[in-house]
């Protein structure tokens, strides 16, 4: 009797082991990826729903108290990231669909003005001991690089629309761009400091792309400092073995401080796509070969390179489970969209669908498990401007 029961159990187990992976591959994964093509293409309805989803957060007038990371600096950075990616997402939407300009311009200004408040600048102020807008001898790349990118995109959007001499955001954009350019020229490494004695490759990618977009907005030819920066980046930021971006560099000699990571690399690639799409594509292909993998058709992204033992990640990368990170999935999704890599996009979208738990209600689209920062990042990444479309804005 016992033997009979054991045989039945073994049969069921064997059938389950064959059937369940089969069902995951041919039922669950296609179900999770069903909207992928829709989000891969430039679809006005999706953009509108995602923008409405971000309106929910913007209307809340968020402050540091809405975040609960346990670290004052991270609370500030995430609040900053939420407003920044929201502003960038709205701007990208209006650049692609010019008819959305009137609807979005007020919201873009709200988000950009929120970034320029003491409560958001506080994380940078606490690190440097001075306001990021003093324009003295400290680089403040962690604040100015990102903020200036959003301002430069705003400038590009308003290229022929408003009076540039009187618009405060454009005046600020010009001021920051000149300051960052000056700091880059003075830097022997051609890299700016994010915080005292800390250099991060991704923050410098944001700095350079902000300057490149500023030049596009002001119809200037590419300056020498930007052209030479890519050589410097290749020399000091790119890992010679994998061709991905080293996460952190020593502030004096640019030696390695932290190994390349997928979260920093893919965010950096997204920024560089504004400045140098060919270079960004080369980095994207290297990073895809190194970090990306699929499990039963679902995309996953290693946070660390293959030859480095996986850490636990940090608050920027999200938890790292079995070596795979959460935030790099979102950043890579945007990069796959930029470089027309539909297969990679679909597999990653399936993973996002399962883990992100999309909520659609009354014209609104949000990702329920990411909170405001996750929503803002996904909004920015799913509205990216494809590399081939950048020609339109020259």
């Amino acid at each position, binding site marked *: 009797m016992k033997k009979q029961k054991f045989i039945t159990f073994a049969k*069921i187990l064997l*059938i389950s082991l064959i059937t*369940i992976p089969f069902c*995951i591959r041919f039922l669950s994964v296609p179900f*999770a990826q069903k909207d992928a093509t829709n989000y891969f293409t430039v679809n006005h309805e999706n953009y509108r729903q995602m923008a409405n989803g971000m309106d929910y957060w913007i209307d809340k007038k968020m402050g540091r108290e809405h*975040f*609960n990371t346990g670290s004052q600096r991270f609370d500030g950075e995430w609040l900053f990231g939420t407003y920044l990616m929201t502003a960038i997402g709205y701007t990208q939407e209006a650049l692609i669909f010019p008819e959305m300009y009137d609807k979005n311009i007020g919201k873009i200004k709200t988000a950009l003005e929120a970034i320029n408040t003491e409560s958001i600048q506080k994380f940078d102020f606490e690190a440097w001991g001075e306001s990021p807008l003093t324009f003295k001898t400290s680089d403040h790349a962690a604040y100015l690089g990102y903020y200036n990118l959003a301002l430069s995109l705003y400038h590009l959007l308003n290229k022929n629309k408003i009076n540039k001499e009187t618009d405060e955001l454009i005046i600020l954009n010009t001021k920051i761009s000149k300051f960052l350019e000056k700091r880059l020229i003075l830097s022997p490494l051609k890299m700016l400091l994010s915080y005292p004695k800390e250099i991060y490759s991704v923050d410098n990618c944001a700095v350079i792309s902000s300057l490149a977009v500023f030049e596009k907005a002001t119809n200037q030819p590419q300056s020498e400092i930007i052209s030479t920066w890519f050589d410097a980046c290749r020399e000091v930021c790119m890992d010679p073995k994998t061709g991905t971006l080293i996460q952190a560099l020593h502030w004096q000699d640019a030696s390695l401080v932290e190994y390349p990571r997928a979260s920093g690399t893919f965010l950096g690639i997204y920024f560089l796509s504004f400045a140098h799409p060919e270079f960004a594509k080369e980095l994207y292909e290297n990073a895809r070969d190194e970090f990306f993998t699929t499990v039963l058709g679902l995309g996953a992204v290693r946070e660390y390179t293959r030859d480095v033992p996986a850490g636990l990640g940090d608050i920027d990368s999200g938890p790292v489970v079995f070596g795979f990170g959460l935030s790099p999935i979102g950043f890579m999704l945007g990069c796959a969209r930029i470089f027309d890599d539909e297969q990679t996009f679909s597999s990653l979208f399936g993973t996002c669908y399962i883990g992100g*738990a999309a909520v659609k209600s009354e014209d609104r689209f949000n990702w329920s498990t990411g909170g405001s920062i996750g929503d803002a990042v996904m909004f920015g990444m799913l509205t990216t401007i494809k590399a081939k479309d950048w020609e339109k804005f020259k």
Partner: protein
Amino acid sequence: MKKFIEPILILLITGFVCLSPNWLFDHQAVFALLSPGPHTQVWHIFFFLTFLLLRLFVILILPGYLLVRLGYIFFEKCKPRKGEQ
């Protein structure tokens, strides 16, 4: 009574997975998972992890499980009973 437990459990799990995203969204529950510490409410982490595990179960495992289960029930029904042979 015993035979109703399984379908009721599946319905409850699926219902929970379908209805809880709104709650998670409104409470920004993600922070509980990303930065657990003394400031985090334990029930937030518990709810969030439960949600993720159950969602993974419902989307990935449940279709295959149901197929195997239905196959098993069908097989049992078709099996000749004792004395019929």
